[in-house]
C-alpha cells in the first residue's frame, strides 16, 4: 500500500468535510423487497432469454450439445476466427490468441467464445475473461462475436447474475450488439463494438 499522504492533503481535507457534513446523520436500513430469486425456470426461462436476445437484435441459434461443433463450423465457415489460447471451444482453422496486436485483431473477422453467465430477463451475457473467453480485447476488436451459452449458465434475474460473477475479474456485460441513438434518436445497431452478435444456446 501507498504511504499515508501528508496531513493537510486533499484526502484529509475532503474526509474532514464529509465528517463535518455528516455529524448527527444516521444511516437508514436498506429494504430489499425486490425479487432476488427466480420465478421462471426450465424451458420458459430459455424462451425468455431467446426472446430478449432477439428483441435486442442478436442472432440466436439453438442446438443440442452433440451438435455444437457442427453448428459452430456452419456459423463460422466464411470467416477468419480468433479463439482464446486455452479455450475448449474452437473450429478448424481458428487462430489462438497468443498476444495478437490490436492491429492484427482488427484484421480478423470474428471471435468465438463461451461466457461466464447469462441473464434471461435482460438478455444479457456476462464475460469474465475466463479460459473460454480470453482477454477483453479479443471480444471487442473483431466485428463479429459468436458466443456459446450453455443452458445451465442462464439465470432469470439481475441479482442472480451478479451473484454468479467474481468482481475481482474484469467483467463485460453484453446485451445485444453495440448501438447508438445519438442522431435524431434513430437507432443504429453496431458502432464500435462487434456489429454482429451471434448467440449459440446449447440446450
Amino acid at each position, binding site marked *: 500500500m501507498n504511504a499515508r499522504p501528508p*496531513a493537510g492533503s486533499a484526502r484529509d481535507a475532503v474526509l474532514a468535510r464529509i465528517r463535518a457534513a*455528516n455529524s448527527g446523520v444516521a444511516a437508514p436500513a436498506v429494504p430489499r423487497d425486490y425479487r432476488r430469486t427466480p420465478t421462471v425456470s426450465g424451458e420458459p426461462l430459455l424462451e425468455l432469454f431467446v426472446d430478449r436476445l432477439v428483441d435486442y437484435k442478436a442472432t440466436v441459434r439453438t442446438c443440442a450439445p452433440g451438435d455444437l461443433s457442427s453448428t459452430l463450423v456452419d456459423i463460422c465457415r466464411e470467416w477468419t476466427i480468433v479463439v482464446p489460447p486455452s479455450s475448449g471451444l474452437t473450429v478448424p482453422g481458428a487462430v489462438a490468441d497468443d498476444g495478437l496486436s*490490436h492491429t492484427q485483431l482488427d484484421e480478423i473477422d470474428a471471435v468465438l467464445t463461451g461466457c461466464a453467465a447469462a441473464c434471461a430477463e*435482460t438478455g444479457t451475457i456476462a464475460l469474465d475473461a475466463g479460459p473460454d473467453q480470453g482477454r477483453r480485447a479479443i471480444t471487442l476488436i473483431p466485428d463479429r462475436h459468436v458466443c456459446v451459452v450453455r443452458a445451465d449458465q442462464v439465470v432469470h434475474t439481475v441479482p442472480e447474475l*451478479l451473484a454468479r460473477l467474481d*468482481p475481482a*475479474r474484469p467483467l*463485460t456485460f453484453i446485451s445485444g450488439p453495440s448501438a447508438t441513438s445519438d442522431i435524431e434518436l434513430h437507432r443504429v445497431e453496431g458502432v464500435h463494438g462487434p456489429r454482429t452478435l451471434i448467440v449459440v444456446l446449447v440446450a
Partner: protein
Amino acid sequence: MTQTFLGMPHAPAGVGHLHGDRPFPAAARDALADTQLRRNLGHATATIRAKRAAVVGELEDWEDLRRAGEALKAYTMANLDELLLQLETAVTARGGIVHWARDATEANQIVVDLVRATGTDEVVKVKSMATAEIGLNEALADAGIAAVETDLAELIVQLGHDLPSHILVPAIHRNRAEIREIFLREMPDADPSLTDEPRQLAMAARAHLRAKFLSAKVAISGANFGIAETGTITVVESEGNGRMCLTLPDTLITVMGIEKVVPTWTDLEVFLQLLPRSSTGERMNPYTSTWSGVTPGDGPQTFHLVLVDNGRTAVLADPAGRSALHCIRCSACLNVCPVYERAGGHAYGSVYPGPIGAVLTPQLTGAATSLPYASSLCGACFDACPVRIDIPSMLVHLRSTQPHPVIERASFGAVAWTMGSARRFRFGEQLLRLGRLIARRGRIRRLPPPLSAWTDARDLPAPPAQTFRDWWAAR
C-alpha cells in the same frame, strides 16, 4: 491530522461548466425561439418517455427497487468517509492508484500531470459528466493535450464546437443534415459522398475513431459506480467506445465524483436494474464494463482513480438538499419535465440540466441563480426518479434559502407561451396555490378530487407562495 477543515467550499467559478454565463430566463428565451431545437427535444423526450414506461412496466418490483435504491444512496452518504477509504484500500490493493481532489482545479491538475508523465499529447475519452463538470478538456487543451471524445453525441458536440444539451443524448439539438456538415468540415478522413442517413453518419464516426482507439496510449473515463467493498469501477454505455477506452490503452484515468461510491458488489444489482430502464428505456444497456484495479495481461496496466469533491461536501452539509447527491444521472427527470422540454438543456447553463440540474447546480456552486424557479413543481420528476429524489421539495427549499437573483427583466409576454398550453398550465398552478391552504407542515397529504388520486400515491410538497409564472411575470 494537523488541521481541522470544517469549511465546506463550493465548486469554484472560472473553471468547468457549472456556472452559466446567462440567467435561465434569458437563455430559455433563445431556446424557445429555436423551433428546430424544440421539435427535436419534444420528439426525443416523448420517445424516451414511452420506452421507459414500457420497460418499467415489465417489472412488478419496480417500486421495491426504487426504495432500495433510495435507501442505499442515503446509507452511502451517511457512511461516505468510511466507504471512500474502503474503496481506496481495495483499488490500491489491486494495483490501482487513488488520488483526491478538493475541487475542479485540483482534479484537472492531477489529470494533466498524469497524462504528461506518459509523454503522450492525445487521449481518448468516454462520455463523462464529471469531466465535463470540471472542464477537463479545456485544462488538457491548455496543457497541449488533445482530448478526443469518443461517444458519438459527444463527438458531434465537440466537432461542432458547442455544448451538450441533454445528459443522455447530448447532441439532440442537432439534426442529421447539420451532423453531416460538421463531419465533412471537421473530419479529415470523412468521405465527401457521405449522406445524412444516420447509419452512414455513425459508420463515418466508427471509421474516424477506430484508428485512434487502436493506437491510444491513455484513456480518460468517468464512473457510474465505484464499489467500496471490492474496488470495482463500473461504466455503463451503449456504443462500445467505452469498452475500447477501458480496454485498449496502456493507462486508464478515471475521474469519479465522491458520491458515486456504492457499498457492496451485491448492491450493484439494484442500480443495474434502475439505471438502464430509467435512462435509455432498455432492459439493459448494450455494454457494461467493470474492473478492479489492474488485471495482468488484460486491459490497461496502469490505473488511476481521481476522487473529486468540487462542492459535493457543501451539498452534503445541507440536510434538506443532500439527497441531490443520490442522482445516478439517468436523465429520466429531464424527459418528463415540461420546462426542460421547452427550454432545452443549454438554458440551464450547467452540465447538469433539467430538474436535477435546477437543484444540484445551485448547491454545488453556492451562487445566486434563478434555476430553482425553472420548474412548475408538477412533481413528474419525483415520480420518474429511480432513486426517489424529492426534487420538488428541494426546489421549494432552495427558493426559500436563495435570494432572488437580480437579473435583467424579461417581458412576460415574450415567454407567456413558454409552457405550451398556457391556460392549462395556469390552471394547474392555481390548483397548486389552492394546495397551500390545505398543506400541513409543508406537505400536502391529500388534495380534493380529482387530484386526490394523485396525492394518494405520493405526498406533494406545499407549493411556494409565488408560482413560477407569477415570479416570472413580476420580474
